């Protein structure tokens, strides 16, 4: 199966070269293909500049005529320190700082509308937004529904020093968001074309990309799509890439990439590695393979023939951990021991975006959780399946483990309630809040949903969502509607407060009371003849009334357990209550009201655990979820010993330098 697929791909590419036209990857288009790009670009390796020409064929797939066209010029975010991006980020993003003086820009030299007869009408560039990351042109005549518009654009880019995703570092060049690119026309709502904000990612329509990249011959180039032609001319070479049913195109070039390929499940995996990170190549391959396998099983088989993984250099890490169609950037470092699974997690995450962003193309400006959140949920699922849930993030580092869910929960706990999940990305109170809510809280919400529905149902529900929205632009409402349908129950009451609200939940065992019940004394009239029960003590007043029977009742208790729900988020929870006779019963609380109470008569309650299976990861504090009669002190002892290592080492170090 694998071999035949690859043989098919290479036959396809050979035929394409012979015919001097790009190959056809999918005989039936998977997407609407309403935004198609043919681009020729040349890299000025010394200046890290790009010169390009593009021909955009756009089709109006709405029922509203388009009177204008809006374009993103993303690189202009780095043109000066007064752009929206730079103002919002303060020159800091994802732990990376912008290097002022190494600005970047995307300048449109010319833009013209090409008529059906080939006539070119030059268009005037307008800048309707706060900065030059958005350009608008007024069309001489409206494009009717179903009609086409062809734009010819010449442009010049200066890559900034790597900061947010794009740029150069040494001889490494990362071209992401590098060409003038159409926004998304939404009919009566007009063009959806936001400025490049610090917190936002991207949104665009699907199409076919034919991109020819000219670089000095010694450069190794990785890009979206398949490489189908390579032509050398003097000191330069031109590489032609072709991609179908994608909505972006990115490429990276560096002379000394270590270039490795492997095939798996019919997909060509290409890794372009920094020479210093050679040792991590197998880790990248293993992560992509795990992804291909799990996604095929849980969602849909990866449809594209290739995936390229680019490893950015240490001084270009701002380009790492990023997704583009069939092309992702990761991040490894010789610092990173095998026990910290960041390279694996990064690849698993970025590959996951091929589904959540790549094919399920939500508006990342406005509803980022639909890709980052769902993707983070699957990142955890895949890492858990691979390494086990206890150690899917840190695998035994000096005796410590950290699972993905725990890692996501810790991030969530750091800022759980400043912003809702469904929010325009630039409106979050901070980058930190955006990260925590969009990635971590969203993933935990989906985990909560999984815990409510069960793994099997969850898989059906998520598969249904993906299959219904793939190659479209879904919204949160679509998500709630489709998962409700698939689950066979209205999930809106569960999901809406978590997605649209900022409420939190914290279950707490508020009270456990065991009141010993004395044995009954006096006459028992339930039998055929009255029986007198005494206290069992030597001096028993009952004895004055005659022969006293031994009370048949064992020692017993009247017990009360009070469980409290703090926070405004209502979620159901199970409670396991254990008794002194060794039995345990599980009670269920739908979470309504501020508290609930259970009373029992009989053996003593010795242990109460709310959410015993950890099904509510959103619970803000799990330490107060339980009550036990007697603890054995083992945890306190072991924790003290762990801290003793630190404290005593500190003293030892001091004694060593005195």
């Amino acid at each position, binding site marked *: 199966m694998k071999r035949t697929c690859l043989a098919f791909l290479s036959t396809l590419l050979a035929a394409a070269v012979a015919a001097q036209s790009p190959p056809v990857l999918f005989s039936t288009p998977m997407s609407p293909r309403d935004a198609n790009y043919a681009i020729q670009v040349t890299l000025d390796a010394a200046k890290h500049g790009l010169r390009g020409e593009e021909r955009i064929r756009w089709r109006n797939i709405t029922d509203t005529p388009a009177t204008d066209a809006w374009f993103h010029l993303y690189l202009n975010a780095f043109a000066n320190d007064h752009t929206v991006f730079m103002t919002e980020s303060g020159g800091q993003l994802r732990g990376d700082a912008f290097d002022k003086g190494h600005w970047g820009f995307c300048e449109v030299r010319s833009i013209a509308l090409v008529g059906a007869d080939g006539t070119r009408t030059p268009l005037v560039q307008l800048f309707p937004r706060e900065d030059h990351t958005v350009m608008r042109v007024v069309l001489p005549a409206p494009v009717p529904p179903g009609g086409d518009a062809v734009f010819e654009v010449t442009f010049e880019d200066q890559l900034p020093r790597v900061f947010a995703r794009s740029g150069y570092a040494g001889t*490494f060049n990362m071209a992401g968001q590098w060409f003038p690119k159409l926004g998304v026309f939404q009919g009566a709502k007009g063009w959806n074309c936001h400025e490049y904000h610090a917190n936002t990612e991207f949104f665009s329509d699907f199409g076919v990309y034919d991109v020819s990249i000219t670089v000095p011959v010694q450069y190794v180039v990785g890009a979206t799509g398949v490489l189908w032609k390579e032509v050398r001319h003097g000191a330069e070479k031109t590489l032609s890439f072709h991609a179908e049913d994608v909505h972006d195109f990115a490429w990276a070039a560096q002379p000394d990439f270590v270039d490795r390929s492997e095939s798996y499940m019919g997909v060509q995996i290409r890794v372009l590695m920094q020479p210093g990170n050679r040792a991590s190549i197998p880790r990248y391959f293993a992560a992509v393979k795990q992804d291909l396998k799990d996604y095929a099983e849980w969602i849909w088989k990866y449809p594209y023939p290739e995936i390229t993984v680019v490893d950015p250099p240490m001084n270009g890490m701002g380009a790492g951990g990023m997704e583009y169609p069939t092309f992702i950037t990761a991040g490894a470092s010789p610092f990173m021991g095998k026990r910290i699974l960041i390279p694996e997690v990064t690849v698993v995450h970025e590959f996951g975006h091929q589904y959540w962003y790549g094919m399920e193309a939500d508006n990342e400006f406005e509803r980022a959780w639909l890709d980052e959140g769902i993707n983070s949920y699957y990142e955890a699922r895949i890492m858990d399946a691979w390494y086990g849930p206890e150690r899917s993030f840190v695998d035994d580092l000096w005796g410590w483990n950290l699972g993905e869910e725990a890692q996501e929960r810790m991030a969530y706990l750091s800022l759980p309630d400043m912003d809702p999940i469904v929010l325009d990305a630039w409106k979050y109170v901070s980058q930190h809040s955006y990260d925590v809510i969009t990635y971590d809280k969203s993933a935990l919400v989906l985990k909560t949903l999984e815990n409510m529905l069960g793994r099997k149902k969850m898989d059906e529900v998520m598969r249904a969502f993906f299959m219904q929205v793939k190659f479209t632009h879904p919204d949160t409402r679509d998500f709630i509607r489709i998962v409700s349908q698939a689950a066979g129950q209205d999930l809106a009451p569960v999901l809406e407060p978590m997605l649209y609200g900022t409420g939190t939940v914290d279950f707490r065992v508020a009270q456990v009371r065991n009141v010993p019940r004395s044995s009954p004394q006096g006459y028992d009239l339930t039998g055929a003849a009255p029986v007198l029960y005494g206290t069992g003590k030597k001096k028993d007043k009952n004895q004055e009334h005659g022969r006293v029977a031994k009370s048949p009742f064992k020692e017993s208790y009247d017990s009360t357990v009070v469980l409290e729900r703090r926070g405004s988020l209502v979620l159901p929870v199970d409670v396991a209550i254990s008794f002194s006779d060794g039995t345990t019963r599980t009670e269920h609380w739908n979470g309504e009201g501020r508290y609930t109470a259970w009373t029992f008569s009989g053996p003593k309650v010795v242990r109460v655990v709310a959410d015993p299976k950890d099904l509510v990861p959103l619970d803000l504090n799990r330490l107060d979820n339980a009550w036990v009669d007697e603890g054995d002190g083992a945890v306190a002892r072991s924790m003290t010993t762990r801290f003793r290592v630190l404290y005593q080492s500190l003293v030892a170090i001091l004694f060593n*330098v005195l």
Partner: protein
Amino acid sequence: MEWVRAIGNGLFRGRGKALGTLLIWGSGFLLATIALNPMRRGFHSLFDKAPASRALLGGGGLDTLFDTGMHQPAFWSAATAMLPYMILLAVVVGLVLMSGVYAQAAEGSGSWRAFWRGAAANVLPFTALLLLNLLLWAVVGLGVGILFAAAWHGVRDTMDPARPWHLFWITLWSALIVVNLFRNSLGFSQARWVLTGGAEGVARCFLRSVAFTFRRFVPVNLMTWTLNLVRAGAMILAVFTLSPGYGTTGRWLATAALLQGGFLFAAYLRVGEARAQVSYARAFLEPATVAAAPMPTGKDEEPSVAAAPVSESGGMEEVPGA
């Protein structure tokens, strides 16, 4: 190969090793125990009744630990409140103990009384020597730091992606070398002090020891780095054997015992290093200039080298050509 002999002398020969080792280990244990006490009690009240915390036994459950950070920030500040006092106390205790260890190394005595006598006599000059050395090496460290800050700034624009990686290693080793130079220069000034009975005064002892450290740069560094290697080896061994965990009482006890064994070994190495420094410094001082021990010798002590009057003209100079 005087430095090899010095290591041998320091680690394996002479009396007083056990006492110094036990005192250093015991003080460390005691200081940590006192500082950890509020945390230990807090852990009991936090974890004993919370089954969710049991994951911590297996090296997981970090998010549960994080819960305490989020909901009991007061706990962590209270639990770590003793830390600065512990550090301060450790500095004082360390100075006193090392004063005793160096004095014993010079005297070759293993007695309890001699240890404390030496400690009492040397602690003030040792403090002065520490401050002088700190001052000198902080300045050097700052200079090196500025140099590397500039280098890191430069490497941002490099055309060679491997260079930051190389620079990282160079930075790390440079920092380690500076730290070790500081340790050597301090160690040899302390050794010189006890060998000369402090006859030269603090300033001169300091300057001559710094000069000595540089003059005998290669053997002195070979000596320290050999000991560092043993130390690092032991540390790596400890880290990898410590991980089996804390699940049962037996495992916890084994782990704790192993841990204390490690600290005992570290204390032994520290004493050995001090003694090696004394042995090495002694080899390069004219026998006639080695002063009597700072204290009158007691009955239980070996007779010390006969005191000779220290000449004004730098009697502590090294034996030429040694």
